[in-house]
């Protein structure tokens, strides 16, 4: 149903004409996030520039029962910011000020539109930085990071967004402003801060974030180890962790990824290796020296055919250059790619990679693997060609199979990208009907009418049944006593 003229007019009164977008050409900018395979042109986009405007807008949407999709920088990879028909997109890009950097308490208070990388830039004069570093950090916003509980290369040692946020201010659909968390390290009652982080815009709109800043480490070292098989690289990852090392980053690239990036940035990677590991160690110089020595011993013991140590800062950057340009490099060898995001127990790495390659072969597609091996977070890139009819659908099916494999080996369908629109079907595989119903009841405690980012993150039981993912016995859904949505 199109939005009523009266509603649109009230938005204009609240925000002024310049912050309300309704012409078809400009609306198209907001039709998708970074998962561009799914698109929906929004009916209206509003761009508030203050907390008061967000509160007024949400109150208005609540009165008119208009669905709201919050959007940060639009860099999400799961379609979390995909517009919904008959709703509005609430863009937070105009709220992009760093409100305070507090070096004494090692924290920074930010509006949601502040770019991830800008936080570390502002903290740098104090010798501090913000640790979570999703690969889109140059563009992605902290509000979006909070909504998705974003990770990055350094999560293994420094945690996800949830481990690095002290407080958020959340506007509810009724327009109430809630403070979750506090100036200290915990909050009274339920830990709503942890609940809100990663809630994908289903519980409220985040309008202010206070993050924890960490001291910049005096030294960083990167090791590059090459292996003759992916299995050996996987075993080396497990061995490093079992020995008690906590690298700042531990990344794995398979041969396809090595070749693609080498052709693109000439990082000097060994192109004949089946896999390489990049192992970053940071801390006091003596600690880094001790850890590097230990890591080299373990890598040697685990059949590394070559181990290089970055001798200086330019070489360290070169080692990382390949990893950091892996996605665009893959973009050069395939017209399109679809990036998946499952997490598995580390011990399953080799077995899962083998099975992914077999599954890809069976459906005639190629997969490139470059991922956060240290925490078992896979990012298989499925190559396809959007110009070929049915090719994306094939990639979509393979992607689904990969995620279901992750669940089958004891892992999860998403490590850091979120469920969004993309992984709804796999949510029905990972969770039972009663668990999904519990999620819906929890959502209703915040949003009784289901207006915040409807249809995302948590599938309805109805949808699971339609997709054939709920086990239907003699025509009866399990748990017939549960409410259906």
């Amino acid at each position, binding site marked *: 149903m199109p939005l009523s003229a009266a509603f649109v007019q009230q938005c204009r009164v609240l925000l002024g004409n310049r912050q309300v977008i309704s012409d078809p050409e400009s609306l198209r900018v907001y039709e998708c996030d970074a998962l561009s395979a799914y698109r929906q042109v929004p009916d209206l986009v509003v761009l508030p520039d203050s907390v008061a405007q967000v509160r007024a807008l949400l109150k208005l949407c609540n009165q008119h029962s208009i669905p709201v999709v919050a959007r940060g920088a639009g860099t999400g990879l799961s379609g979390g910011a995909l517009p919904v028909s008959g709703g509005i997109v609430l863009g937070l890009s105009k709220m992009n000020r760093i409100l305070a950097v*507090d*070096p*004494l*308490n*090692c*924290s920074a208070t930010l509006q949601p539109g502040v770019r991830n990388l800008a936080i570390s830039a502002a903290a740098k004069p104090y*010798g501090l930085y913000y640790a979570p570093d999703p690969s889109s950090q140059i563009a992605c916003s902290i509000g979006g990071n909070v909504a998705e*509980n974003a*990770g990055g290369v350094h*999560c293994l040692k420094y*945690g996800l967004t*949830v*481990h690095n946020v002290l407080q958020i201010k959340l506007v509810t659909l009724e327009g109430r402003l*809630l403070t979750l968390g506090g*100036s*200290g*390290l915990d*909050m*009274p*009652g*339920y*830990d*709503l801060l*942890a*609940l809100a982080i*990663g809630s994908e815009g289903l*519980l409220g709109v985040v309008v202010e974030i206070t993050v924890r800043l960490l*001291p*910049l480490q*005096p030294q960083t070292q990167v090791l590059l180890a090459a292996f003759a098989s992916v299995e050996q690289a996987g075993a080396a990852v*497990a061995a490093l962790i*079992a020995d*008690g090392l906590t690298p700042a980053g531990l990344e794995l690239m398979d041969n396809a990824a090595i070749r693609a990036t080498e052709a693109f940035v000439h990082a000097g990677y060994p192109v004949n290796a089946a896999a390489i590991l990049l192992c970053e160690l940071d*801390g*006091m110089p*003596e600690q880094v020296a001790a*850890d590097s020595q230990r890591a080299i011993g373990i890598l040697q013991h685990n059949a590394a055919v070559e181990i290089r140590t970055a001798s200086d800062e330019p070489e360290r950057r070169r080692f990382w250059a390949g990893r950091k340009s892996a996605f665009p490099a893959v973009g050069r060898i395939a017209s399109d790619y679809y990036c998946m995001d499952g*997490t598995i*127990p580390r*011990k399953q790495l080799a077995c899962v990679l083998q099975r992914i390659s077999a599954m890809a072969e069976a459906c005639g597609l190629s997969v490139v693997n470059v991922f956060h091996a240290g925490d*078992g977070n896979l990012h298989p890139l499925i190559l396809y060609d959007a110009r070929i009819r049915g090719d994306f659908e094939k990639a979509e099916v393979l992607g689904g199979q990969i995620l279901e494999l992750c669940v089958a080996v*004891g*892992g*999860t369908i*998403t*490590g*850091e990208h*979120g*469920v969004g629109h993309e992984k709804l079907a796999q*949510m029905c595989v*990972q*969770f*039972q009907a*009663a*668990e999904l119903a*519990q999620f819906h009841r*929890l*959502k209703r*405690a915040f949003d009784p009418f289901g207006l915040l980012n409807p249809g995302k993150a*948590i599938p309805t039981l109805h949808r699971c049944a339609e997709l054939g993912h709920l086990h239907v016995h003699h025509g009866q859904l399990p748990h017939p006593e549960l409410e259906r949505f």
Partner: protein
Amino acid sequence: MHDLDIGTQLQQQVLQAVETGGALRIVGGDSKAFYGGHCAAEAWLNTADHCGVIDYQPSEQVITARAGSRIADIAELLAGHRQMLGFEPPDYTGQATLGGTLACGFSGPRRPFAGSARDFMLGCKIINGRGQILNFGGRVMKNVAGFDVSRLMVGALGTTGVLLEASLRVLPVPETDLTLACACTEQQALSRMQQLSGQPWPLSGSAYDGEYLRIRLSGAETALTAVAKQLAGDADPAGDRFWHDLREQRIGFFQLPGTLWRISVAPATAPLDLVGRGLLDWGGALRWLNTDMPAAAIHAAAAAHGGHAICYRGEDKSDWLRLDSDLLGLQQNIRLAFDPLSVFNPGRLFS
């Protein structure tokens, strides 16, 4: 460690309470009965026998155990593989269980540097207030599928469900610990704590007991030797004992009679204008106060600095925790989403 699965039995007890309109007091090792508000339920739901480790592989750095498992037993198992619970929870002379520790959300001195109980929580199995057994989260480090119910369970005092199992990330034991101590005033201790926390020292503890500021450093021996040369303070040979006793709340301060408050504020907050005996932990972010001041004054002082206060131990728990009205309403709705009949621990968190 014992190994016994009484999950179905516990579920039956919950279902019976649901049917009869009863309420249950969830009890593990009964080591933290002093904590929280007055629980109106008489009938016990005893989780202590539901115990044992379900899965632990050191190379995964994840342990999954039943809620009745003793923290001390888990710590011993982990220590055998040079691993530990990174949030250093108290084990209360061996009585504390995994479930009770998570339900209370207690974390020890390492918390600001390594993370809190909720930070290490990866997944759980619970019984909700409808008697359903549900699984949330998982056994892997990174998992953003669905709402983070596992972390919501931490500190909820059992009011969102009975914890049956939990999966926690564990950490390697540092190669060496070193404690440096120096005598100073509270103000000096606070400014020193701030100064240190903004610099990349390998800190794992920072506390002031009213007399001495102690900092703990953890890492490779060569690194600690180098760091110790650059920092003020003398090596404290009894350091390990101190941190252990602080974690267990066994040092002299915790033996004082009277009411004990736990105040959580930004670490650089100036000494609070409150009368009583104090102890600083967490680099200044956690302030213990033994006082007979009225609850209202303590809540107000914490709130004035953007923090909060909890009456941790005391006779009068009528005003032990405060939530503003919007937050209280939301939290009550969340409780009802999990436990619509308020079967679990009524009154323990809020009435």
